[in-house]
C-alpha cells in the first residue's frame, strides 16, 4: 500500500509515520543499551521505568494502543515498584 490507504482523522502521511517510527526505534535501542550498561541497581530501576515509557510510545506508533496501556501500567509503574521493594530488602543487610 503506498500513500494514504484510508482517510480517517487519525492517519498521517506515510513518510511522517516512517520518520516517527525510525526515531522511536533508535531511542528504544539506546534505552536498552543504557539499561544494561548501568550497574547500580537503583539507578537501573529508574532507567527501566524510562525505557518502559519509550517502549509504550513505540507501540503507539505501531498502531497498538492496547499493548501501550499494558506496557505503561506494568513496565513504568508496577515492575519498578516491585524491584525497589526487593532492593530495599537486600540493601537493609548490606549497610
Amino acid at each position: 500500500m503506498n500513500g494514504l490507504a484510508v482517510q480517517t482523522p487519525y492517519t498521517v502521511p506515510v513518510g511522517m509515520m516512517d520518520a516517527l517510527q525510525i526515531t522511536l526505534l533508535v531511542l528504544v535501542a539506546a534505552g536498552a543499551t543504557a539499561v544494561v550498561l548501568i550497574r547500580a541497581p537503583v539507578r537501573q530501576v529508574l532507567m527501566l521505568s524510562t525505557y518502559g515509557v519509550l517502549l509504550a510510545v513505540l507501540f503507539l506508533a505501531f498502531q497498538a494502543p492496547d499493548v501501550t496501556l499494558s506496557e505503561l501500567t506494568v513496565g513504568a509503574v508496577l515492575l519498578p515498584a516491585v524491584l525497589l521493594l526487593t532492593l530495599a530488602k537486600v540493601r537493609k543487610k548490606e549497610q
Partner: protein
Amino acid sequence: MTPRQRRWIFLVAGAGLVAFYLWGLLGLPGFGRYPGPYGPAILRVVVAQTNATGVVSAINFDYRGFDTVGEEFILFVAAAGVATVLRRLRGERDRPAVDEAADRDVPDTSSAVRMVALLSVGPVVLAGWWLASHAQTNPSGGFQGGVMLATAFVLIYLSGEFLVFKRFSPVDLTDVVEAVGAAGFAAIGVSAVAMGLPYLKNYLPLGQVPGAVSSSGTIALISFFVGIEVAAAFILIVGELLDQTLLIRRYSSGRGG
C-alpha cells in the same frame, strides 16, 4: 574459568547466535508488508460475529480464549509461588529492628507525596474499573484494568502507613477475590460445555449496537473476571514483598526515630 574468559566466549558465541537470528529475521516479508491470511480474515468477520468493536479483546476472550485461560493461570500460579517462596520458614523470626535500621537515616514521607498519592487513588480506581469493563469497545481490557487497580493499592501504601495498606487488602480477602476471578473465567467456559456447546463459546445475547457496554456476550463478563483476578494477584505480590521489608521499618520509626 575467569570472568574475562567467560566474556570472550560469550562474545564469540553471541555473535554467532545474533547472526543466525538476523538471517532468519531478514527472511520475513519486510516491515509493513504483512501478507498473512489470519489477520484480515478475522477483521472481515469480527464485528458481524461478535458485535464487539474492540477486535483485540474479542480475539483475547473469544477467538483465542483458550490461550488466555492458560495465561491467566500462569499469573495465578506465579502469585501463589511468590507467597510460597517468601513464607516464614521454620527458624526465622521477625528480628527486632533496632539493631538493623538504627544506623540508617530513614526520612519521613513528605506531605507532598502523601497528598498527591491520596488524591490520585480515586481517579486511578475509576480508570482501572472503566478499563476492565469496556473490553469490547475501546483499547481496554481485563489485563490493563486489573494492573491499574493494583497500582491504586500501591498508591494507598505510599500515601499512608503500611498498616493502612494491610487493612485495605487483608490477605484472606485478596486470596478469595483472586480465586473467584480465575474460577469465574474457567466456569464461564465450563458452563458453555454444560449447554452442549464447545468450551468457551460465546453464547450470551450479543446485543443490538456494536460496541455498547452490554453487547458482545461473554466477552465483557470474562474481561471483568480477568480484571479482578489480575488486580488481586498483583496486590498479593506487592503485599508479600512489603511484608518482607517494612514490617520492621514500621517498628523502627516508632522506637528509634
